[in-house]
């Protein structure tokens, strides 16, 4: 190594040192420590005691954990496709040359700026079964449906009925679609107009253009958003936690793995068990992300390649 290279190496190391120190102390050490704690009975105050794989066997027979896992996966599988479809739909609409386009883009993006706490409290009221805005809107259509069917059709009690609570949360999540919409909008604007012109010359209709031009060209952006969505939804914590005032929702229908980790770590003082749950969640996210990447390899179209 020449003196110049050695100097550059030192400078480079110097620049990355703050990050490296942060990574070692605030990411790698907690990760390794939680690996160890997952094999221990650890209440935070007393020293951890090695108990082998008991936390993992407990997890396998813990019905609350399985319910939290089912809720987490159900939420992810409902929220991601719905959120993605809505964001793409809005982005396509707002990409059309219409008057006041900038205004509408701002309006649809604005809700995603609302802080999570305010968002959850706002939706607590929107979803209120007795006097919520959503049920006020649903009242007359459902009354008409009930009249037509000959049986009363009351609007759902969103946050108190275990059959609807998860859907209430999915709707709450759609409030932040504006963020993904902006990314899709940027992706749409990157699609060369010549591709649409060529497709039109070939006699395609709007749906065919969407199916064979827009979607493939947008697929890298969709891929990115889906990966971020998977990681985000599997770690869902704040909104359901506030929506249920720190509880689990009716029949534990709003208990998620991340919430259960928090409860065990800081409320039940079972840090060892919480670490084993966290490790499981980490592996689950890694596996699902890998699965999505595998699908992406076949389905994502990169124009530059």
């Amino acid at each position, binding site marked *: 190594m020449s003196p110049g290279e050695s100097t550059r190496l030192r400078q480079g190391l110097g620049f990355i040192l703050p990050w490296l120190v942060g990574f070692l102390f605030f990411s790698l050490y907690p990760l390794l420590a939680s690996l160890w704690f997952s094999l221990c*009975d650890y*209440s*935070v*105050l*007393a020293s951890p*005691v090695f108990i082998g794989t008991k936390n993992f066997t407990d997890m396998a027979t813990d*019905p*609350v954990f399985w319910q939290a896992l089912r809720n987490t996966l159900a939420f992810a599988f409902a929220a991601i496709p719905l959120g993605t479809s809505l964001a793409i739909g809005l982005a396509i609409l707002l990409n059309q040359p219409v008057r006041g386009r900038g205004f509408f883009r701002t309006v649809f993006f604005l809700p995603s700026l609302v802080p999570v706490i305010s968002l959850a409290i706002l939706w607590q009221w929107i979803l*209120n*079964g*007795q*006097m919520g805005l959503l049920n006020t809107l649903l009242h007359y259509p459902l009354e008409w449906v009930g009249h037509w069917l000959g049986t*009363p059709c*009351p609007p759902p*009690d969103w*946050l*108190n*009925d*275990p059959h609807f609570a998860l859907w209430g949360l999915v709707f709450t999540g759609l409030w932040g679609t504006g963020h993904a919409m902006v990314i899709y909008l940027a992706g749409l604007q990157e699609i060369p107009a010549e591709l649409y012109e060529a497709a039109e010359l070939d006699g395609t209709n709007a749906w065919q253009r969407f199916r064979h031009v827009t979607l493939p060209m947008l697929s890298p952006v969709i891929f990115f958003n889906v990966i971020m969505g998977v990681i985000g939804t599997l770690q869902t914590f704040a909104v359901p936690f506030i929506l249920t005032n720190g*509880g*689990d929702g*009716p*029949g*534990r229908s709003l208990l998620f793995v991340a919430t259960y980790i928090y*409860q065990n770590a*800081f*409320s*039940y*003082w*079972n840090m060892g068990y919480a670490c084993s749950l966290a490790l499981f969640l980490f592996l689950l996210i890694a596996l699902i992300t890998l699965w999505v990447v595998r699908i992406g390899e076949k389905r994502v179209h990169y124009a530059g390649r």
Partner: protein
Amino acid sequence: MRLLPIFFCGLGLAACSAPEDPRARGRLVLEYWEKWTGYEGDAIAAVVEDFNNSQERIFVRRLTVSKMDQKLILATSGRNPPDVAGLWNTYLPAYVENNALLPLDRLAAEASIGEEDYIPVFWEMCRHRGHLWALPTTPSVAALHWNKKIFREAGLDPDQPPRTLAELERFNEKITRKNPDGTLDRIGHMPQEPGWWMRDFNRWFGGKVWDGESRLLLDSEPNRRFFAWLETYPRRFGGPAMYRLRGGFGNFASPENPFFTGKVAMVMHGVWLNNFIRNYAPPDFEYGAAAFPADEENPSDPVSVAEADILVIPAGSRHPREAMEFIRYVQSQAAMEKLCLLMKKFTPLREVSPGFLENHPHPYLGVFLELARSPRTAPILNIPSFNEYSNDIETNVNEVLRGALTGEEGRTRLSERQQKALQDKLARWQRVAGIREAAWRRELDEAP
């Protein structure tokens, strides 16, 4: 780049703490964490102020801390706890068994504080595993509160509360009003409003949650009756209808409180409710308070559960002796009565001055004092797995009240899961019991 100096100045200003009270100079500063805010926080601040003015050696610096039950244990595990802290009595067993507190037996004895000074139930709740760990401050017991105007409307005697649970349910049927579409317009009583004592409700059926050693007693006859009683609610009023009605209830501390708006006519509440009625209920609101009726025909004594805010000295406190001096001051009759009067509660001390009773704004203070002294009043549940139990009973009881589970199913699920949670906590305790006991004995022998 021009903004950099401003940024660093901002950082510097942010790093500066609030100016220290000049009275703290030259004194030993005692860090005191307290959970209360609002008028309760002001009451504590007034007593702290009195203590700081009463002597010149110690200065108590009060810090309001939210989620105290979690933060205190984390601060203690990080070996940076406050010198003294205000907790709720329910957390005592979990804190003790996790070695988070100092035993106070010797310090209390030196301060001439003893069992004879307190109403028995409040002294009892400060003890665990044979030692004294805390001293009570502001107490409460749960009692029935009823809306007299609604009683009158329903053709009931507004001055005659139900004396048995069966009578409460008869009143409940008379008061409850349904809308034409089957939804509820008003209900006489529902166990989940406010539902704060759900884990202790079995006391009114003569039951206990656990034997105090190792076993849950949820399969006992009184506990079975308690769950069977819960099961009657969805059958009579409709589970979804009750929860839909409840969905429209406002916050406890607001004019939308369902008891104040007349949506619920009978509720179980603590001594504090009177203050909230004065602040939030309509001016013509009329209510009464009495012992909540038990599930028996002729109860010998009224039944209730008691709870209290407690003062503890966390393990690792840097100034335990001075912390005890502050606690002793708060336990003096004058300071305690001032605190309890400002908090609109009664005092946990046996001795009550005539002035306290005369000046107290609560019209039913006598009811609460009688309940606190009743031999059938027990401390609210204190079990090492308290948080797990609270969460689980809330879920299962709500499922029973919604009609999704039968009483038996709810009881069995709760019992199976919570017996395991208790056993895990006890196994943890057994591993360290010898070491802890020896450390506490050492602590007591070598108390500072």
